[in-house]
């Protein structure tokens, strides 16, 4: 009602409303203004993640549309137990992993490196090494590891998700996720060494 009386206030809705309020508003009224808030807020991030995982902008665009369709259709299932961002990122990661598995295009995996990773599981990779890596190099390195490892690293370092949240997304226990993170970091280090050995 306030928005109808004072149209200027409705423009401000995007900056004042929380994700959870927008979800509630959309479910109650089906008004597109609430969905637009969520779309504006998350579409670039979801697109960015799709580009990182699918490595193709055209496919990432299609994936973003599909993911938002899933979000609309399942919005009533969002229980509010986790953050809204965590919920939509979990849809994004699962969708992209499914797409890659279905198309079996994840051929960039360093098969030999993965096989050898188990032998060196005791070596702990310094987090700083990954976080301070040059962005261009990080992109190349992430492209060389399996999509599940890439997703786990993005969840941890890009989305700052907790081990429990990552475990919920990947349907794995917390200890399994800790081990997967450790292995993913080792794979990154190996890939980095293999690609940039001259530096």
């Amino acid at each position, binding site marked *: 009602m306030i928005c109808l009386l004072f149209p200027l206030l409705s423009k401000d809705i995007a900056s004042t409303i929380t994700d959870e309020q927008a979800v509630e508003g959309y479910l109650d009224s089906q008004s597109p203004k609430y969905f637009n808030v969520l779309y504006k807020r998350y579409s*670039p*991030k979801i*697109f960015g993640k799709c*580009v990182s995982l699918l490595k193709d902008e055209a496919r990432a665009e299609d994936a*973003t549309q599909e993911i938002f*369709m899933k979000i609309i259709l399942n919005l009533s299932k969002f229980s509010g137990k986790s953050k809204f961002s965590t919920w939509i990122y979990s849809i994004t990661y699962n969708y992209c992993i499914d797409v890659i598995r279905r198309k079996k295009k994840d051929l960039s995996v360093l098969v030999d490196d993965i096989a050898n990773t188990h032998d060196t599981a005791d070596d702990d990779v310094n987090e700083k090494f990954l*976080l301070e890596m040059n*962005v261009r190099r*990080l992109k190349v390195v992430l492209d060389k590891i399996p999509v599940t490892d890439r997703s786990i690293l993005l969840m941890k370092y*890009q989305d700052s998700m907790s081990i429990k949240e990552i475990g919920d997304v990947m349907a794995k226990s917390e200890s399994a996720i800790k081990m997967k993170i450790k292995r993913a970091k080792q794979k990154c280090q190996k890939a980095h060494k293999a690609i940039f050995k001259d530096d």
Partner: protein
Amino acid sequence: MPTNVKNSFKELQDEESAKFSEQSEQKIRHNLESNVGLFHFLGEIVDLYLPKIFGMFVKMSGGAPSPTEDQSNPSRSSDNDRPKYPNTID
């Protein structure tokens, strides 16, 4: 993880998100609106016609009429016992 430490993952996210053009945003929004509109339309069609179609199948299979039809039907067995012209003297 301390917040003041450099995080190349976040930088990568900013870089990838920046590729999302205004044109792509509009295109996806338009497609979503069309899809949602179609879903609403289909939902309304189902709401409107499904009970009628269901009722038709029930009738075709020889099922009992629905309670609403039952109330509107005057030819009940108890009615048949009553005289046809109650106010006339036999």
